[in-house]
């Protein structure tokens, strides 16, 4: 079974530039999560989907961040105008469903540096 795939692995931007991250979850997993992990910190949930619907995006900076999962499979996280404070690793995870018995499977992440 293929794992969660993310691309690109690295991104380096100047402030004000835009960037998109792509995630391909494990086949058959209906729940998908995006986490932000600043250096030397734990991951923090940004948004999660059940199929194509956003379930919780309360921690997503809505003025500059957006996330979509149009067909309930792959997902894209976009930063419209990056700031230095966005420097972090962005992790995508998926799970078979949203119930409490579930395990989250994480991708290797995209490491973003904003100069």
């Amino acid at each position, binding site marked *: 079974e293929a794992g969660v795939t993310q691309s690109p692995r690295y991104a380096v931007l100047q402030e004000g530039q835009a960037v998109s991250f792509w995630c391909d979850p494990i086949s058959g997993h209906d729940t998908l999560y995006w986490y932000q992990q600043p250096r*030397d910190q*734990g991951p923090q*949930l940004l948004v999660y989907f059940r199929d194509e619907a956003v379930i919780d995006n309360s921690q997503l900076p809505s003025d500059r961040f957006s996330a979509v999962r149009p067909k309930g499979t792959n997902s894209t996280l976009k930063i419209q105008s990056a700031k230095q404070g966005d420097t972090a690793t962005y*992790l995508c995870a998926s799970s078979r469903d949203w*119930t*409490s018995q*579930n395990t989250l499977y*994480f991708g*290797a992440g995209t490491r973003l540096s904003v100069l």
Partner: protein
Amino acid sequence: AQSVTQPDARVTVSEGASLQLRCKYSYFGTPYLFWYVQYPRQGLQLLLKYYPGDPVVQGVNGFEAEFSKSNSSFHLRKASVHWSDWAVYFCAVSDMGYKLTFGTGTSLLVDP
């Protein structure tokens, strides 16, 4: 709101020695608790998970953890550390399993 505290940012142990990584949680009710490991340049991988039941949970690669409601703790243990255990370990608490709140992580260094 739920939260997790990992008081030790870094722990160093000798190969073959025993290990305990500390985790304290804050949650109203009975929590679901997890330990994840992150190897360099890789995503997080589940070591073990606790659902209400037996307080001692066995995980992969010889890891186990013990849930204590009275101490609000979920410490991770291993009897004999191997050099390949060198990684960052995260404790997490969940409300019904879908929204994980992670601690800041403990970096484990293994002396040869």
